[in-house]
């Protein structure tokens, strides 16, 4: 083992060889490769999370538990449950998404790969967007797919299931983007969890109102397109603004 290390450094001592290498390095201009970097970051985060399944399952289990407990605690009366179901499902999904946010940048911060991410010659905006995309893919999307099943438990009236899943899929994407700003701001703090919730929850309220509103409207047979359009608009706005805020917040946290 040691001899191989030795050989390698011996070979790098051949002057002319390395001179060439370094002069080639010096001419290095930053020449794109953004897609390579983004794709690699997506793959890396997906691999990491899929290897730590507990972290992925945690918010889903939380969501399922909360929804299961409500009929037991309140009443199994389908009419009563149907009234509160949209709000309940949305609040529980929102809290589940919030629960998983703290770990978004935490492990990267702890093991030093976050500072390497910031020093990469690629725009941090794109790389952090890749990280948020993975978060949504493994938290928001599963929550949205799971919600209709839990809706059955709350006697959610037929016809609103598709809207529930759709509104959650759209809404959780905004939640991931907005939440990531808070996660980036608090990553340098030892116990940033509570502060993160306080920072992020007020910004979650518009998404909650229009998300739960969409399901409510579907139950009453009103038009849902207005609610969904506003959810879409919120997502578009967060997609445009949040990545820059996330990148700036990461810089601030690393500076601290």
């Amino acid at each position, binding site marked *: 083992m040691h001899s191989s*290390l030795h050989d390698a450094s011996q070979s790098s001592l051949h002057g002319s060889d390395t001179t060439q290498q370094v*002069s080639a390095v*010096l001419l*290095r*201009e930053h020449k794109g490769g953004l897609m390579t970097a983004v*794709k690699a970051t997506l793959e890396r985060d997906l691999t990491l999370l899929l*290897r730590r399944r507990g972290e992925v399952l945690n918010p889903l289990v939380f969501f399922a538990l909360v929804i299961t407990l409500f009929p037991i605690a309140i009443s199994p009366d389908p009419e009563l449950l149907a009234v509160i179901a949209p709000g309940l499902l949305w609040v529980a999904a929102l809290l589940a998404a919030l629960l998983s946010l703290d770990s978004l940048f935490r492990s990267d911060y702890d093991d030093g790969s976050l*500072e390497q*991410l910031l020093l990469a*010659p690629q725009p941090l905006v794109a790389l952090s967007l890749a990280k948020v995309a993975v978060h949504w893919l493994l938290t928001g999307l599963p929550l949205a797919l799971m919600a209709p099943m839990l809706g059955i438990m709350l006697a959610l009236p037929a016809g609103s299931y598709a809207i529930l899943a759709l509104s959650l899929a759209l809404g959780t994407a905004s939640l991931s983007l907005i939440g990531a700003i808070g996660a980036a701001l608090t990553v340098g703090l030892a116990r940033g969890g509570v502060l993160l919730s306080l920072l992020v929850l007020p910004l979650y309220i518009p998404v909650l109102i229009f998300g739960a509103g969409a399901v409510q409207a579907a139950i009453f047979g009103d038009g849902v397109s207005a609610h969904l359009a506003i959810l879409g608009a919120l997502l578009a706005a967060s997609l445009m603004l949040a990545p820059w805020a996330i990148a700036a917040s990461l810089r601030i946290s690393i500076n601290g």
Partner: protein
Amino acid sequence: MSLCLQARQLACERDDRWLFQGLDLDIRSGEIVRIEGPNGSGKTSLLKILSGQLSDYQGELFWNGAAMNEAREHFLANLLYLGHAPGIKSGLSPLENLAWYQALSGESGNEEQRLDALEGVGLAGFEDVPAGQLSAGQQRRVALARLTLTPRALWVLDEPFTAIDRYGVADLEKQLVAHAQAGGCVLVTTHHELTASPLLRRISLG
């Protein structure tokens, strides 16, 4: 072609205490610059300022004659920084870790290069073991493999000898000298005594 990193009147304050003040630095190709000083004297802060991670300082930085905020992209494309934490993901294998670092700089690279780099730091046979199961020294070696895998002109190394055994230390020292001889530039903090070399320059803090 030569490279040149300059600092003018650099000053950094932490908790109402000046770590350093009025620091002028000229770091050019072919040099190994060792930053010395007792614990807490601001070695890591200086390296972070020089590598553009900390913005909380006074003074000016120049890269090849241009102000740092204008030349930042070119600077980052030529910088390799290894910090206190090795930046190795414990859930990924050494190969996967290196692949990400290669991709971060925009190169897709290939597996053969990465295997060669790992063999170069004595980790042949550990390519697919999750990095979390490797020892601290082995994890540091994975990070050091980036020196050969992604060649950069300017190396900024914060305590690179931590947890490395003495054979590894000797080899890494040779690698630093070879890099400087080839026209590269090394900026290093270490408590380990570096072998005297005409290329070595010391800067004392504190």
